[in-house]
């Protein structure tokens, strides 16, 4: 096919016979759609971060600091809704999955390109509705991102609109997952057997199945909240024969597996980065691939560990506690394999690897504190305290966040054909990692001391730790600002790079940077695995 537009700019260049804005917004090119996702996600991320900073600032001292109690409830709800549904869930699969997956497997595009564009539009519509829930109706939602009944059924704030947004975003997520599954099954290049898939593709595959199988339950739950509020349905209202515990079950049947939608692709990114910068074949390809599927499977059976104190039967608590521990096994398998890959590798501490190493450390803290919450006895002590907040921020920010930043730094030269300042990128990674520990470690201590989560006010003895945590949030903000500024400068004026600046062995690095509109001019025939570096040449200029 004839390549249109400037060859030097690849898919970023103009498309013949179409307006520039239209060619982007209605593009069916997976790379463009991925970049659209990435842009939206980063904008929403900044919104979420600002809300988070406001929460921390409010909590720097007991009593009212910068906002009232109702505003505080709205702010932490929005922080949760924006971060979970608009940033973390779509982050790596929708952005980098779209950009990289077809390149990784040697395909021209995803299986359903128009559906892909449609799911981006659904994301945008969902985001607009979620944001408009702030400014319309009788005040922004104040339920927390879990929308627990009975409060969400009776509060007069704008819960209905926010839940509708969640439903639409869920639909977008389902369509992306469906698209990826069909793509991976149908569009692999000749020679790209299941044993030669890059590990990032394996994690996307596992993630896609969770998206397809778990998200519909969120859909029905969201619909039922709307029915409960608008029609007074009574399915969760005990006065009419309903049961609020059923809501928690339905909600967590989706929302716990969603945690693995968030973390699995980040693990995939790390599995890509570590072998490239150790210049060594990854240790235990098969076990890493299998552990992704095992996490997806086992992770779908543990939802009720969010409900140990809800009044379930003791048998249920025991079973769900045991199953929760089972998920730790495949997660640990991955960590040990990464460490074994690094061992005696020819390590180059480039920014993507720095982010990946921070990921491993922070994810381990998050995972180990997860075991404290997974065992029923200790969970009763720290349930709904700051310990939980600290734990999931270690996993989500330290895990998914650093996975996303790692992916941004790893694929940046491929997508834009330019390089950022590497020393500054390394510095931003370290500042972020330090800030993150200062921000969230005090929360673990606060939780053990008994400080409940979501509270607007607290007793004076908790002040010191809250001050430390708030200072940590500023360090994180500095790190983020430095990282984004550095990437922006690289995008505008970074040094031009060749096809393969990192010396990686996966297929996308055989294309020019940025890749052309239709990816591979001739369908590639795969003859080696994704981590065989023997014949790979560095192409830095």
């Amino acid at each position, binding site marked *: 096919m004839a390549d249109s537009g400037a060859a030097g700019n690849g898919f970023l260049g103009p498309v013949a016979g179409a307006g520039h804005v239209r060619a982007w917004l209605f593009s069916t090119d997976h790379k463009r759609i991925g970049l659209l996702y990435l842009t939206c996600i980063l904008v929403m991320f900044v919104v979420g971060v600002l809300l988070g900073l406001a929460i921390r600032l409010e909590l720097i001292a007991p009593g009212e600091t910068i906002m009232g109690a109702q505003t505080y409830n709205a702010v932490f709800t929005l922080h949760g809704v924006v971060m979970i549904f608009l940033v973390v869930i779509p982050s790596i699969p929708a952005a980098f999955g779209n950009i990289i997956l077809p390149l990784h497997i040697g395909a021209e595009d995803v299986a359903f390109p128009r559906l892909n564009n449609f799911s981006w539009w659904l994301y945008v519509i969902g985001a607009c509705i979620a944001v408009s829930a702030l400014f319309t109706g009788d005040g922004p939602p104040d339920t927390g991102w879990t929308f627990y009944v009975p409060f969400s059924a009776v509060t007069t704030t704008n819960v209905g609109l926010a839940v509708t947004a969640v439903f639409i975003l869920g639909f977008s997520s389902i369509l992306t997952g469906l698209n990826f599954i069909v793509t991976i099954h149908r569009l692999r290049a000749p020679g790209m057997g299941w044993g030669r898939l890059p590990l990032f593709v394996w994690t996307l595959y596992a993630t896609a199945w969770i998206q397809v199988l778990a998200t519909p339950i969120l*859909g029905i739950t969201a619909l039922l909240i709307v029915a409960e509020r608008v029609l007074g349905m009574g*399915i969760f209202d005990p006065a009419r024969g309903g049961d609020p515990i059923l809501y928690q079950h339905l909600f967590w049947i989706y929302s716990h597996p969603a945690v693995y939608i968030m973390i699995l692709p980040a693990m995939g990114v790390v599995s890509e980065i570590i072998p490239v910068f150790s210049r060594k074949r990854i240790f235990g390809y098969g076990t890493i691939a299998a552990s992704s599927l095992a996490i997806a499977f086992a992770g779908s059976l543990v939802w009720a560990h969010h409900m140990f104190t809800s009044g379930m039967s003791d048998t249920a608590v025991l079973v769900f506690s045991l199953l929760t521990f089972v998920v730790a096994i495949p997660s640990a398998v991955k960590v040990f394999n990464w460490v074994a890959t690094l061992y005696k590798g020819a390590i180059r501490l480039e920014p993507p690897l720095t982010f990946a190493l921070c990921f491993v450390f922070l994810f381990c803290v998050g995972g180990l504190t997860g075991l404290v919450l997974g065992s029923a006895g200790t969970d009763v002590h720290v349930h709904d305290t700051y310990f939980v907040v600290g734990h999931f921020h270690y996993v989500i920010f330290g895990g998914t966040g650093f996975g996303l930043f790692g992916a941004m730094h790893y694929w940046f030269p491929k997508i834009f054909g330019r390089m950022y300042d590497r020393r500054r990128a390394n510095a931003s990674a370290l500042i972020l990692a330090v800030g993150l520990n200062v921000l969230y470690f005090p929360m673990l201590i606060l939780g053990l001391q008994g400080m409940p989560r979501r509270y607007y006010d607290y007793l004076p003895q908790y002040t010191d730790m809250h001050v430390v945590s708030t200072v940590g949030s500023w360090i994180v903000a500095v790190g983020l600002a430095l990282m984004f500024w550095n990437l922006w400068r690289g995008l505008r004026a970074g040094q031009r790079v060749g096809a393969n600046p990192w010396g990686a062995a996966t297929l996308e690095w055989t294309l020019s940077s940025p890749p052309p509109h239709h990816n591979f001019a001739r369908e590639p025939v795969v003859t080696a695995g994704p981590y065989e570096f023997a014949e790979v040449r560095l192409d830095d200029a």
Partner: protein
Amino acid sequence: MTHEVQPDYIGAKMGMWLFLFTEILLFGGLFVLFAVHLSRYPAGFHAGSATLSVPFGSANTVVLITSSLTMALAVTAVQRGERRRTLALLGATVGLAGVFLINKFFEWSAKFQHGIYPGSEHMLEMEKGQAAFYAMYYAMTGLHGLHVVIGMCVIAWVMGLVAAGRVHRDRFVTLENAGLYWHLVDLVWIYLFPLFYLVT
């Protein structure tokens, strides 16, 4: 579900089947709620079920199964290249779906006249088990009714494609996928009918 550039028949079918899984799971959440409520209030569900009209429900079941048949015949017709017959059979499917909805309308409005609808005062005074039964009844048949409407729109859209000659004997996967969707709508009803009308 399909697109012009790349007629990957197996891929398109696979995508549709995955989508149907998500639909089953969407209803699955409600089936789980139904199971819990039924085990909690067997007497209330028995009493509630006794107030539904079995002849009405049976008639609707027959109507919907017949529409599934006309849909399947339409797929065969398009494979043989019989365009007019395809259009007629698809038209019949949409017509039968309309009959189903009209029937449902009469059923629901009869209940409404007795003051039985979500949020009504009568429902608040009702015994808890019966209230739960009607809540499930309206939630599940309501969601199913919505799917019937969506199915009618999809079939009407496919009729347009057939008439325009964009779906024909060599490329009929869009019609086939619409048919799969319609069979799912039919299938869900086949579970709803005994659960609500015959459980007593």
